[in-house]
Structure formats: C-alpha cells, structure tokens
C-alpha cells in the first residue's frame, strides 16, 4: 500500500509539465491532473466544508404571509410594494412569479409570545441604553412594543417615508422605503435620529423577519440562507435540532479592534471574516430568492442569523446596525473596571437594497452574478483585460530579520539576481503570465520593518533592485512590493509612538505580536501621512505595484483623547490615500470597500467558518470577483491536502501562488517566517511548473467567462457551467462517475467544450 502511495506522491512532486490532448472525443477534455490518488475521507464531502446537492422541492406560495389589510402603494414593473400603516410592515410581490415576500407573519403563531409578536410585526426594532443612577440598562423596543409609538407617514409615488417616535424611549427616527428600478431600498439617515437625555440608541434592525421561514418538525419552505462568511456559506433549512443552536452574528469587515478586545487563542486561526455586506434568502432553489446589500452603514453593521429553535421557530436573518456599544472600561491594570457606554453615536446612515430573483437566478450563483453586475454598474468593479493564460503569483522572500542576543541578524534569503534567473527558468517552462510579489525588500527584512521601508535590503542593494525593476518592466510582469502602512513595529522607526498610534475606546494602544516582534496599529491618518511621504520614492525607483498586507483586511476605529475616528472615516482615509497612487495594488483577503482600487486579491478566502449550523461552503466571493480582480489562492507550498486544495482552486476559479526563496527554508527557523515550511526554489521548481499547468489547462478555457450554474451532482462531484458553453466536472472524491456518458475519473477535472 505504501509503495503505491509513495509513487503517487513522487508523481505529484515531479509531475510532467505538459498535458497533451490526444485521441479523445473532440469536445471532451479530461485533464490528467496526476495527483496523489489519496482523496479526502469520504464522509467529509457531506460536511459543510463542501457544497451539498440541491433538493428539488417546489415552493408554490409563502404560507406565512398574505395581502389582507395591506395597501398597494408602488410598482416598478417587476415588484409591487404593499404596506400596513399602523406597524409599517410591508409585502413585496414579485410580479413575474406572483410570489409574495413579507416582513411580518399573517398567521397567528401560538408559540410566539406578546413581546415577540410585537417585534415580528414592527418595521423597526431598536436597542437603547437607559441611563439609571447605577448603570446604563439595555432595553429593546419595537414600534408595537408599547402601543404608544407615533408614526407619521407620507406616501410617495415609489414608496413611503415615516417619522417614528418610539413610545417608551421617545427616540425618533425617519424610515424611507422605496422601490427602485430593480429592487427595494430602505434608508434611515443618521441625522434623523433624535435621542433623549437618558435614552441613547444602541442598535437598529429594519424588517428583520423579511423572508423568515418556519421550521419545527418539518420545514415549511425548503431553501437556505446565504451568509457571506469567508468564501460564502449556506444554512439550509432543517427541522429543529434537539439542542438549541447558537445565533450567527458577525461584524461585517471583521471585529473592530478599536472597540472590542480580541484575545487570539494561539491554537486557533482568526475566524474567516465577512468581506461583503450582503446576505441572501432562498425560498425554493431556482424559484424565489432575494439578497440584501448594505449600501450605506456597512462599516458599523453585523449580519445576524437566527436558526430555528433559537428563541423562535423561525430562520430569520438581518443586518444589525450598531450605533453605540456598551463596554467595560478598565480602571486598573488587573481586574477593576466600570461598565459604561460609548459617548458619541457612530454617525452611520442605513441604506439597504433588496434585490428579488426568481427561477434560474434564485440561488447563490444568481445572487453573486447579480451583485457583481450591480458593483460593475456602480463602477466599483471593472472587467480585467483578458489574457490567454491564467496568472500565477510568485512571492519572493528577499530578506528576513532574526532576533539576536545583542543585535539582529538579517538573513539573505533571495538576491535580486536570483529572482531574475528563477523567472527566466520559469518563463522558459511556459509560465507566461507571472505576477511577482517581493517580501522583505527593504533594509530590515520582511517582519519588523513596517512602516519604515526605505532603503533596499542590505544584500542586493539599491542597484540590485533598480535592475530587477527594470527587468520586470521589460518582461511586462506585474510586480507588487509588500508593504504594511497600518502597523508600526517597535523599534522600526518611521512613526511617532506618541502621536501616530491608534487608540482603543479604553484609551490604550492596540498592540499585537508576530513571533517575538511587537507592533502597534497606527492611526489611519498617520498611515496615510507616512504612505504619502514614501510616494516620491516609489516614483523614483519605478515601483509600479504594492501589496498592502493589512490595509484591506483590518478595519478599526480609533478613539483616545482626540475626536473618535470611526471605521467609515478610516475607509475614507485609506481610499483617499490609495487614489493618489497610480500603480497596481494587491491585498490579502480584502474587504469590499477596497474593491475599486484592487488589481489582485491574495490569500483569497476559500472556506467558511464551518459553524455547526452551516450546511455548505460556497464560492460566492470568488464568483463576485472573478473577471474583475486577479484572484490568487494561499501558497501552494503550504497545502496539506494537495489534490483536494488544487481541485478547490479550479472549482472556485482561483489562480495558484507560491512563496519562494533561493536559500533553504530551514534558514528561516526561529524567525516569524518559519511558518513557511518549504520555500526552496531548487526543490520546488518542477512543482511550481506542474501546478501552474495543471490549473491553467482547465481554467484558461473560461477566462473572461461567467459562471452561470454550479451544480453539485453528488457529494464531492461539482458541475460548473460557464456562459461560453464550457462545462467543468470537478470530482473531489475517490469514486469514478459516468455523467451523461462522460467518464469522470476520481480526483480529476473533465472539461466539456460544447
């Protein structure tokens, strides 16, 4: 047994770099991937690590809602909007299919108590802090909670505007509900919110029960909730589990480290984040669906999803807007603290757009395509120029710092000459669309340098880099120099620890550690200032691309003595800062606010958080970004299950990447880069070439094409259909399948050119 496996592994490591298509059916192209034939453990394909097959249940109407007592107030050709004046609940009728969506339930549900019934029927539901002599109490109030709320509604041609005064808290706000050309838009401007002396607003939910589904012993409407967790996740509706599942709640763009203390367990990876401000609900796959998109307020919002069995018998999902938080202010260095609330309300407008989809668009692929189209329309995304071959990202680790006893050591990992000779060799092996990333190009090595980048590394020097940049420019290779202007390492210089640091709401600096190196997060204003100072150097040396290691994936507010700087202000600062730079930009796992400036996404999220209640992981993020941004996966050198992870690259449409050094990886022991287990180009070269051709030979058939259907035929067998007519069958499993007369061997991909 061992012998066979070993041969397979050797085959993987030194796979033949060419794949000829000969003597086969003219339009079917099985791609021999030459993997280690050891597939994943069979049962894993049924887990939420993969996408599951669809059920074919038919949904005729929505049993929770009807139109009795609702006034029709607007219509846009696709949708008709109804509302009820006393609680502002709405009904949206899809004119094409006749399906009705509702924000509340018309059935009298015997398992809902009075409080919950009020919440379900109310359009708006807030959480506020009531000041008492001891502390600020957290109170929830929906429009119908007290029976004393005042609503003044103005009807317009396309919807209505209501002024709401809550009965108990007396907090006031204005709700705008309008049909747009393609969907429904909700808007709550922040300057319409009026607080009282003792009641301060905390959170806001608008139409949280829109699209809710009841499930006790059986599911009333089959379908799923799409959550933008990591790559994307589905929570299919299932009968209630015997044990109450947890609520899914996650901040869009990650937790704000300026507001919350995040203790990272060293045994656990940081959880995948929400990169896109969307969620979706499907009632009957390929029948009825909508997705909601936050157009305003995304920097201070959470996606919350309640599974059935958790407080109610419903699956319901919504955006929760956070204006203000309660927190424990430490008063001593060990344990003492007092509970207090954030002084100023975060000034965010709430803008939610609902887009309703039907038939073949009513699924996560349809949502992703529709969302992408709207981003293109808003000029947030634009199509990439089409290249014949797939790109590959090669990151070179040039130098790295190693902490020493008296002074630090600088490891010479790769010289600029070595980079050029490696690129020459790879180019001659048929890698024609290389993108290059340089890590540790500045004087003090990769880690521990930020934000102080100039001059160049002490081994290759300025002249080495100038000739390398020249070479890369002539070869027309997109090059990204890795920089990190959001962090300041202790002792790195280039920033002023008194004025340039970000502060938490507790007033402390936000610190972190990489290996044994300490760093602090910088104030976004300082980030922009330091970056602008370096701009002239980028021009001077002909640096045409930058990879910002943290800017796109770490968003925080900053507080302290000066006026608070919320996350939207941070975003605006970063956007302004990047708009003056005219080179290409790459970022790892970037959030949506960076999309207008991105050329490449590194470390593209390929998985979800795999919460127990999730049933599937889906490539939502990659479908949205494909064709507009180069997507690069995690370093192939780090792969644990090579075959499986490569198949996922192909399935998700993501290009491979590697990290390479000229010196052996063992040199990196006891540096922060020791996490790169194997980087030595001498050993990896055939592997790089083979991996590139393996992925390129499949994916170059669909460059510039759009994925229109993604179907899971069996657990672990995926069929991707593209709009240029090409079909990819991706078989993750150990089983051979025959689908429509096409043989699909285990752990391989078959391309059908119809």
């Amino acid at each position: 047994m061992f012998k066979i496996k070993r041969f397979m592994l050797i085959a993987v490591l030194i796979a033949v770099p060419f794949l000829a298509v000969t003597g086969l059916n003219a339009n079917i192209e099985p791609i021999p991937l030459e993997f280690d034939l050891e597939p994943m453990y069979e049962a894993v394909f049924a887990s939420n690590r993969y996408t599951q097959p669809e059920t074919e249940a038919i949904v005729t109407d929505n049993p929770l809602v009807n139109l009795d007592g609702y006034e029709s107030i607007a219509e846009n050709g696709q949708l008709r909007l109804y509302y009820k004046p006393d609680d502002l609940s709405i009904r949206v009728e899809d004119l094409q299919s006749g399906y009705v969506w509702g924000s509340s339930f018309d059935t009298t549900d015997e398992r809902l108590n009075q409080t919950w019934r009020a919440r379900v029927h109310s359009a708006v539901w807030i959480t506020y802090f009531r000041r008492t002599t001891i502390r600020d109490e957290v109170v929830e109030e929906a429009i119908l909670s007290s029976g004393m709320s005042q609503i003044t509604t103005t009807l317009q041609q396309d919807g209505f505007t209501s002024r709401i005064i809550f009965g108990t808290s007396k907090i006031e706000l204005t709700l705008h509900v309008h049909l747009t050309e393609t969907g429904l838009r909700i808007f709550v401007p922040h300057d319409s919110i009026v607080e009282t002396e003792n009641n301060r607003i905390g959170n806001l939910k608008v139409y949280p029960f829109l699209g809710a589904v009841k499930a006790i012993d059986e599911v009333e409407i089959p379908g799923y909730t799409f959550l933008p967790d990591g790559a994307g996740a589905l929570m299919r509706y299932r009968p209630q589990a015997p044990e109450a599942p947890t609520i899914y709640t996650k901040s869009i763009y990650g937790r704000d480290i300026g507001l919350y203390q995040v203790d990272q367990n060293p045994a656990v990876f940081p959880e995948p984040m929400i990169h896109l401000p969307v969620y979706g609900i499907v009632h009957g796959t390929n029948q009825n669906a909508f997705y909601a998109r936050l157009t305003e307020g995304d920097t201070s919002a959470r996606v919350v999803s309640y599974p059935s069995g958790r407080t109610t018998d419903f699956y319901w999902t919504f955006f929760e807007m956070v204006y203000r938080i309660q927190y424990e202010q430490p008063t001593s260095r060990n344990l003492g603290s007092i509970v207090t609330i954030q002084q100023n309300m975060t000034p965010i407008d709430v803008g939610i757009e609902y887009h309703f989809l039907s038939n073949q668009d009513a699924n996560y692929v349809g949502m992703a395509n529709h969302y992408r189209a709207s981003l293109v329309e808003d000029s947030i995304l634009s199509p990439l120029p089409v290249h014949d071959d797939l790109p590959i990202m090669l990151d070179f680790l040039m130098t790295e710092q190693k902490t020493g006893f008296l002074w630090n050591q600088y490891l010479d990992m790769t010289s600029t000459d070595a980079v050029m000779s490696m690129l020459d060799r790879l180019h001659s092996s048929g890698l024609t669309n290389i993108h290059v990333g340089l890590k540790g190009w500045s004087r003090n090595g990769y880690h521990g340098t930020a934000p102080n980048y100039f001059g160049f590394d002490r081994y290759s020097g300025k002249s080495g880099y100038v000739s390398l940049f020249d070479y890369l420019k002539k070869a027309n290779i997109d090059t990204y120099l890795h920089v990190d202007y959001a962090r300041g390492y202790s002792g790195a210089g280039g920033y002023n620890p008194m004025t340039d640091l970000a502060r938490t709401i507790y007033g402390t600096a936000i610190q972190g550690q990489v290996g044994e190196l300490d760093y602090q997060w910088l104030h976004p204003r300082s980030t922009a200032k330091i970056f602008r100072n370096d701009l002239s150097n980028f021009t001077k040396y002909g640096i045409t691309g930058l990879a910002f290691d943290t800017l796109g994936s770490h968003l925080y507010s900053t507080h302290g003595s000066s006026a608070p700087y919320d996350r939207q202000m941070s975003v605006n600062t970063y956007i302004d800062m990047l708009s003056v730079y005219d080179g290409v930009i790459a970022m790892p796992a970037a959030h949506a606010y960076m999309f207008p400036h991105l050329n490449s996404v590194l470390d593209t999220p390929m998985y979800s958080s795999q919460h127990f209640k999730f049933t599937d992981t889906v490539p939502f993020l990659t479908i949205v970004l494909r064709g507009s941004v180069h997507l690069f996966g995690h370093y192939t050198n780090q792969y644990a299950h090579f075959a499986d992870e490569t198949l996922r690259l192909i399935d998700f449409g993501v290009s491979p990447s590697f990290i390479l050094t000229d010196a052996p990886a063992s040199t990196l022991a006891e540096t922060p880069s020791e996490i790169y287990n194997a980087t030595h180009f001498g050993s990896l070269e055939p592997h790089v070439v083979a991996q590139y051709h393996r992925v390129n030979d499949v994916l170059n058939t669909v460059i510039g094409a759009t994925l229109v259907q993604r179907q899971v035929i069996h657990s672990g067998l995926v069929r991707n259909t593209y709009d240029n007519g090409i079909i990819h069958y991706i078989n993750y499993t150990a089983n051979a399948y025959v689908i429509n007369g096409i043989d699909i061997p285990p752990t391989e991909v078959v391309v059908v050119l119809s």
Partner: protein
Amino acid sequence: MKRILLLTTFVFFLVLVVRPSPVQANPSGVPYITYTMGTRRRLVPTQTAYVPVGILNANYPLNNPSDITVKGGYVVVANTGMKNVVVFNTNGTFVKTIGQGILAEPLGVFVDEQMNIYVADKEAGAVFKFDFEGTLLYTYSRPTQPLFGEQSVYRPEKVVVDRGGTLYVTGEGAVNGVMQINAEGIFRGYFAVNQTRFDWRMRFTDLFLGITDQLARNLPPAPTNLTIDNEGLVYTITSNIEPGIKKFNMLSVPIMTAGYTPDERLIGIDVDQYENVYVVDAAGVIYQYDAYGNLLFAFGGSDTGAQRLGLLNRPSGIAVDTIGALYVLDRGYNVIQIYAPTPIVTLIQEGNYLYDIGDFDGSLEVWQDVFNMNSNFRVANSALGRILFRQGEFDQSLEHFITAQDRHGYSETFWELRNRWLQAHAGTVILGVIGVVTVNTTLNVTKSKPKVKDKLRTWTRPVRQHPVMQELKMLFGILKNPADTFYQIKRERRGTYYVAIGLFIALFGMVLGSHGLTSFLFTRVELHRLNLLVEFAQVIGILMLFIVANHLVSTLTDGEGWFRDLFIGTIYACAPLILGLVPLAILSNILTYNEQFVYTFIEMILYAWTALLLFIMIKEIHNFKLGETIKNIIITFFAMMVLALLGFVVYMLVNQMMEFLFSLFKEVIIRVQN
C-alpha cells in the same frame, strides 16, 4: 535565594515571555493551527495534519457522553446522561443502545476482540460485561481479596481488557494506580503506578508551615485514563506529571514515555495499529505521537460558544479507527467530531514503518518528501540524520541532526567525523609535533632562541609593565598562591576598583562567551533567547549581593576586611572561571558524549576551585579561623536571603502603590468624562 532573585527578575520581565507566532493566513480552511515539534524543541506551525470531517451523531442526540471506543466498524459511546451505551456505525447510523436499566453512571467503555462490551460504572461500583447483543454476561464487582484492601474504594471510571481477559480499571480512589483484575474477577494488584515526586518546594513549605498531611501529599497521582494496543500493552495518561503519557510492558515497567507533555489536564488516549498514540487535553487540543513518543502534531482548540466544526468545547474521549480517522467525543456540545488525516500523516507513518522493517532506502525517500513539505520538521530531520548516518553520509547526517537538535545523533555522527579526520591527519599531527619540538631544540642549541625571546620581551615591555597588567598578574598568582595574593590585596593595598570592575565585566563576558561557544551537546542555553538583564542579575547581581551581605555580616562579627578588600578579593577569587570558562567552551567543540566526563570534570573543577578561593578569601581578608569562616559564610547566605526578600517586598509595595494611584486617577477621569 537564587530562586527568589530569579523570581524577582521574572516579575520584571514577564512581558517578554515568548508566545508562538500566530499565523494569519489559513490555507486549509480548518479552524485550528497545526503545530509540530520544530527545531530547538519548540512547537512550530506546520501543514494541516487532520481535517474535521463532520459530526458522527448528527441525527442522534447524546447526553453528557464520557467515553468512546471504535472497533470493527462500530463506534461505541458511554452515554452517561442517559445511563446507557450507544452503538453507531462508523458512517454515523444509529445501531442500538445497550445496558438500559442496568447502568447507573457509565463512564468508561471498551470493546474486546470478540466484540464484548465492557462498561465501567462508577455509581454502580462495577464493571459490566455485555455481549454485542446487549446481554449482560458478567458483573465485576468490588474485589474481595485481602490484597485489594479493606478500606479501598471501588468506583470504576475507565476500563480496558487484554486478550487474556484481564481488566485494567481506573477509578476514583484507585490512588495506587490501575487495578488489574483477571477474567474471573480476582484482583491481581496495581499496575502502571506513577513515581512519587520528591518536591523540594513542598518540603520547604512543610518545614515552615508544619503541614502534617505528609502521607496524602506523597501519594503518586493516579492515571486518569488508559488504552491498550494490539500487543496487549497498556498506555496511561496522568495529568500534572512529567512525563504524563506512558506505555507499560507486562511487568508494569514504563517502556515508552511521550517526549512532550501538554500543560493542560489530559482527558483521553488511544493508540492505532502502528502504535501511534493520540491524546486529547482539556483545552481541546489533540496530540499525535509516533511509536517512539515523538510529538508529531498538535492541533485543535477550545470552542467557547461559536460551535465551529473542528473545535471542542469539553472533550471527554478520543478513539482512532483502522484507517486513521479520529473520533473525538465532546460532552459540552454532545457530539462526536471526526477528523481525517492528510497525506503528511500517512507519509510519516510510512517513513517510520519502512525504517522499522529495515528498508532504509525506501524510508529515506519518504522522509525526504516530508522534509520537502516542511524542512524544519524535527522528526523528519532526526530520521534523515539516522538513515544518512547508517549510510555513512556523515556530513549530511550531521546537518539534519543539528536542525533536529538531536544531541545523541549529533554526538555519534561527530565521533565518526572526528575519527575520520584523526585517521586522515594522524600522520600530519604527529609530524607537526615532532617538527615543533625539533625546531625548539635547535633554537635552544644554536642559542638563537634567547635572542628571539629578548626581542619579544623588549617589544612587549611597555605593555607588561603597565600597572594594570601588573595587577592582572594577580589572577595567575591567586591560582598558585591564594593566601599570599589575598594578603597582598589586604595588606599591600594591591588592586584597584577600576580593574576589579573591569574584571566583573570580564567575568560576565566570559559567561556569555561560554554560552555562545559551548558545543550544543553540552548546553541547552540558546544565546539569542537569553535576556541580558536576567543573565546579568544571575552572574553579577548575586556576586554583588554576596559582597554586600558579607560586608554587613562581617562588620558585626569582627571581620577585619574592608569593603574594598572584599570587592576586589571576590572577583579575583573568580579567577578560575574568568580564565577557564571560555577555553572549556572551545574544548567542548571537539568532544562527544563519549568524553562527557572530561567536560563535566573540568567544569566541576572550575566551580569547586572558585568556591574554595572564595572560602580562602573570606578567611584571609577577615583574618578568621576555620570555624569562624564557616559560621560567617552561613550567616552571609542567610543575610543574602533576607536582603532579596526585602527587595522583593519593597518592589511589591511600590507596585501596589502605583497600581492604586493609577486606578484612582483613571476612575476619576472616567467618572468626570461621564
């Protein structure tokens, strides 16, 4: 004393404690970081070794399950909350429950080769034996043999059974180890007993606080869980002892101990057919060891509410099936999570297997593949070193041993290399020695040598006659004639503060130098991990404390010495260390473990000599008699302890004070702001 001082410095530098590097990018989508034993015995991140596959009992709720075992395609769980045992297929289908109505608190479960199910029941005070259909075959109640003891409690918690039908039972009160009970229920004695610890700290507290409960304290901790391999050998885990994971032979002698014991409470253990050992701890981390006890992988983590696949809330057991999948029981979420190995795990097993059957070429290739996946993998480097050593590739072998920090392997390889060098160069060396001697003699005969010598003397005269050099001569003088030299220091006022301070710095430098230069065979100190201040406190701080304490004590006990004499005398007494440490360190580089005695002997001499010189110094400087000197030294040590304690107390008080002021200030600010 040193400990207290160390503690003090530790409090100061607590912030500098090293934490593992957090990895941001998550290539395999698993929630946990996988660590392996890296070089220098640190846990370093590596490729994902196990992938969470899902939940086995997705359709069947468990209630506070306590133990799990896998046999013959079935997963058997002690479902404590429901007072029964649940049987699943390995694909997750519920098969049946057994023992309903018989079991009261089933905590442990085991399935033997004939598929009989044994259940350890704590509440019922018995081990029940069922056949696979669920018929009760036998009840192992409390043993009645006198050997078991009148007072002994019998509350079984975990059980395993060997092929002969002998039961190994752990339980509450089984403080003597694992109870061994034969198939007929006759108590055979205690098995797998842990060693009693001799704890200096405990003795010390006893001495001062007079806690009399000595007996209870000195009982060895009992194993908390156990497993058995195909050969019938028992493995146990015991929390809070080092090593906590052991394998025993039939005679209850430990024959394998795990090279790394987790700090957390150990929960469950299982062993696969290749004798790889799997352990889960209370923090939800799963450890895989190879048959030799090397830590291969550590992965997993605790889940405190998020409910993510792969993380554990309150793990209560672990089992491994024949294809290497792990089943981990979680009594917090009432689930059985499954983990499947990735190819790197299979490769390592294969490498070990080929090595064990003697296929070194095959094994070499496999380990080379593992090395290509992670070149800092300790086990891979060690294995490559061993194989290359066998093949006579000593140079390469040595490199791998250095990376792996495999000291014994390095020592053996270095011996071979040194031997080869000596054989190749023996002639040259002997010729060289003869040559030098001949030249020397010739020079002497032709009387040209004095000329050379004279010339040398003339050249170096200004240096040699410099007062500092004159003073430094005492370093050598003290070695030959300590009493005289101390007399010179005291009576002739030889020696200055400047030079003495210089020598203190030199001593510190020599200590650092010896750390840096000693072959890694003889030291575990890693130069770049040293904290300069801690090191300084340990070397110079203690000497200073000694000088101050001795001065204080001696002024009260009629010592004649002045502070100056003590200060200068002490550093000159350290002459053996100043002169010897670095040469010893250099020498260590050509030694192997075969000549270890040479190193330890010289090292001992250096320290003993220094101690002796210090003794003579006190005697001479203070003009004490022998008895007085001894008394003086004992009191000095006591004074040092008191001084250190005093320093510690002052430090704590100041710290508390600062803390109080800080809180006060902060709270006022916050209250005012609100």
